[in-house]
């Protein structure tokens, strides 16, 4: 009984912290319509700043708390709203997501620079770990503090939203921005306030959580996935249901540790938020397709089939010529770039054309490598498995979320990637360290030769690129783009929105899986680190920066991504800076949505216009926008 009570207490404490972060998430999302993927990162920065002030510089605890919770966090929230979020109102999910992910990556990069992970930092518990004993149960002051704080916040939020003018205005903004504006409230001010409030709640959760766990940048940032899951129970809207979800998650977590056998705990516990999230998603009702949503992105023109085949052939020849000059190490790096470029094609299809966002693309890649490694030793059967396993997984994920808004796909894939990291890839049933992956075998060609394999990768990318471009020009491509521009119009001309999304997600996962098989073959083996969630995020950001709407943009981004580790090896300090730069680049997408590929296409059109006589010039420029 005492064990049960003790476990329940721990669960309650953790649940309270999840509740704080989840409520912050819900408040910002409902008032601004922009889902903040950097919510956890804000909490992480707050926790580290608190450590810096109180432990690092020895300020009194109360002063440090005051500075972090009442000065830094609200300012940060308000600033983020003003600079990053405000230009995004009404933007499609693909854009808002990339910008807040960019913020997440930047904050991680920044924190790594400010607080290098080489030293361990410990935050003492509040009240120096003093305890009281309540009916045989030892309760620390720290735990009491968390529970009391959460209860106070809950009560305050409730009366804020029902009693105060500003709170009621916030709820009005949730219901209808235009109506609220008519009624004399300024929705932008209200949104700014809600971001300040949201950041404060994130900071509060971070500061309360940090003493209970280790101060780990990534760990604290990703703990927010628990908050997402809880918020999903509240349908990203209802605070009371969100709080119940958070408490349930904390309690389940704690009871699981206490009562389930070790093996089960290790598998189940890290996956708990994912199960909760998927469970909650299953109960969500089919959403209305909103008419009057903002149109998608204006895409660069697609090159004709003949031109794309010509460029592809030239590309392969160039790759063959270049490969003769490359050292073994450079062949490997270049090959990596080619494989990644192929993998990015799956993002061009899914996100660039289809406007869907997957945050687990590398998980599909990993599943592909896994299948290739386990089945058939390089035979066509292995390749088939490498396509089929991730495709089936993608289809399964799609089935649960395609009825819903794009945001849910992003959240579900995020939770999936995180769970797969901890329960599959890093575990014996996955790789157990390293998994050998054979290269595919082709009759009469020795793919064991690195140069030959490099050229094969170039051919595969070229064929994939031509294929993706050809698809774009055909009926299915038109349907995808149309769906991205206006789901409501698509549905009213008889297109099943859900089926189309299911198909494209399945195809994209299969393509990524095939890339995974080739990736595994390149190095001969794969390790869990190759597929971690953070890299998936980085891949998506880089792809978006390069320009998801163009194959050339995907190629540029892939090459950059492949050079990352090389640069990092040569200039160790650069690693964190590159995170920061990628993040900052992504932030700029709030204003320029087409990425580098789009810019290049634009530049090309402008140059052409420049050489033409004035009359035609105007025309081309008009077409180029």
């Amino acid at each position: 009984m005492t064990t049960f009570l003790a476990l329940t207490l721990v669960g309650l404490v953790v649940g309270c912290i999840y509740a704080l972060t989840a409520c912050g998430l819900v408040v910002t999302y409902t008032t601004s319509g922009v889902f903040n993927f950097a919510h956890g990162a804000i909490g992480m920065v707050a926790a580290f700043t608190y450590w810096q002030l109180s432990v690092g510089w020895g300020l009194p605890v109360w002063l440090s708390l005051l500075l972090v919770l009442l000065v830094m966090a609200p300012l940060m929230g308000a600033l983020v709203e003003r600079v990053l979020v405000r230009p995004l109102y009404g933007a499609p999910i693909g854009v808002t997501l990339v910008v807040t992910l960019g913020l997440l990556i930047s904050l991680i990069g920044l924190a790594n620079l400010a607080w290098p992970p080489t030293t361990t930092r410990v935050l003492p518990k509040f009240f120096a770990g003093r305890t009281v004993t309540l009916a045989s149960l030892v309760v620390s002051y720290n735990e009491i503090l968390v529970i009391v704080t959460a209860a106070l916040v809950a009560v305050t939020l409730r009366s804020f939203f029902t009693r105060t003018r500003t709170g009621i205005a916030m709820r009005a903004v949730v219901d209808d921005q235009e109506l609220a504006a008519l009624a004399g409230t300024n929705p932008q001010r209200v949104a700014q306030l809600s971001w300040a409030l949201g950041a404060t709640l994130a900071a509060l959760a971070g500061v309360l959580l940090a003493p209970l766990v280790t101060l780990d940048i990534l760990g604290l940032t990703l703990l927010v996935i628990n908050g997402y899951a809880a918020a999903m129970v509240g349908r990203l809207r209802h605070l009371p249901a969100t709080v119940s979800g958070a408490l349930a998650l904390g309690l389940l977590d704690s009871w699981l540790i206490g009562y389930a056998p070790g093996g089960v705990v290790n598998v189940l516990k890290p996956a708990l938020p994912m199960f909760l999230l998927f469970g909650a998603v299953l109960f969500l009702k089919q959403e209305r397709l909103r008419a009057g949503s903002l149109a998608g992105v204006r895409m660069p023109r697609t090159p004709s089939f003949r031109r794309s085949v010509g460029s592809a052939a030239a590309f392969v020849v160039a790759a063959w010529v270049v490969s003769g000059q490359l050292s073994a190490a450079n062949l490997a790096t270049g090959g990596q770039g080619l494989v990644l470029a192929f993998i990015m094609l799956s993002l061009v299809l899914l996100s660039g054309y289809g406007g869907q966002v997957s945050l687990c693309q590398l998980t599909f890649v990993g599943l592909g490598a896994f299948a290739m490694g386990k089945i058939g030793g390089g035979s066509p059967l292995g390749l088939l498995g490498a396509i089929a396993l991730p495709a089936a997984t993608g289809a399964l994920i799609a089935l649960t979320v395609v009825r819903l808004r794009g945001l849910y796909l992003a959240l579900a894939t995020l939770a999936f990637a995180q769970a797969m990291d901890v329960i599959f890839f890093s575990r014996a049933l996955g790789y157990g360290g390293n998994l050998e992956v054979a290269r595919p075998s082709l009759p009469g060609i020795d793919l064991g030769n690195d140069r030959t394999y490099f050229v094969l990768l170039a051919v595969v990318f070229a064929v994939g690129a031509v294929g993706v471009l050809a698809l774009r020009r055909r009926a299915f491509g038109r349907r995808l783009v149309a769906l991205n521009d206006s789901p409501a119009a698509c549905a009213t001309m008889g297109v099943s929105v859900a089926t189309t999304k299911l198909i494209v997600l399945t195809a994209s996962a299969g393509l990524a899986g095939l890339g995974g098989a080739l990736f595994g073959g390149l190095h001969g083996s794969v390790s869990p680190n190759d597929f971690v969630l953070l890299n998936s995020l980085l891949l998506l950001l880089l792809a978006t920066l390069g320009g998801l709407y163009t194959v050339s943009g995907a190629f540029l981004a892939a090459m950059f991504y492949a050079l990352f580790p090389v640069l990092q090896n040569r200039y160790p300090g650069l690693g964190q800076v590159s995170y920061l730069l990628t993040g900052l680049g992504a932030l700029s997408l709030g204003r320029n949505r087409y990425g580098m590929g789009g810019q290049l296409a634009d530049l090309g059109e402008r140059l052409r216009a420049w050489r033409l006589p004035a009359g035609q010039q105007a025309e081309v420029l008009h077409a180029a926008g």
Partner: protein
Amino acid sequence: MLQVESVDVRFGGVQALADVSLCVDSGSLVGLIGPNGAGKTTLFNVITGLEMPARGRVVLDGRDVTRLPPHRRARLGLGRTFQRIEVFSSLSVRDNVLAAAEARRSWGHDEPDPARTATDVLERVGLADLAGERVDGLSTGLLRLVEVARALASRPSLLLLDEPGSGLDGTESEALGTLLLDLVSDGVAILLVEHDVELVMRVCQQLHVLDFGRVIASGTPSQVRQNAAVQAAYLGADAGVVHA
């Protein structure tokens, strides 16, 4: 062909539709008018399945479709345009129409070549010259025509048009009227929401007037013009539109 029976829709405190019933017979051209905010667009959303009514039924060709998702209704021959324009802004004019024709081919039987359909439809609404243009540079009036063309490309038997004439000049709206009459003579039934009273009076055989979510009058155009409630509604909310 279409029956709407006692439909209710609420948005928070706003009763957008209250006990609305109306019919559209096959091959007829029915007008739906009313001041801004009367609930016309909401009714279109209910008919096409983008909005769930709290109460009431929508019946298409004798079949209760109230629970069907939008794309299934479209496959029963229902097409529409949007008041707040919903063109595919990354596609050319022709590809907008082609996408619809291709969609129709994917669920219809024995469909003609989509490329042909697209060409025919563009010709018909007078957009043939602009086929290669991107839609994001076009004027609102032309965008409305693109929407009409796209709706026609899926060859509907009932077409819902939400203010297709706004943004058109005199000659263009004249041409639109002729196109509508043409379509009706081909056997397409049309439910038309339009503020251009002259156009409505010219082409519609039957009119329903919506005000604050209720049908306040129904009848032939001349009957409706005489109706005291209609005069009051328009004078109260949006003076002069009926007389314009």
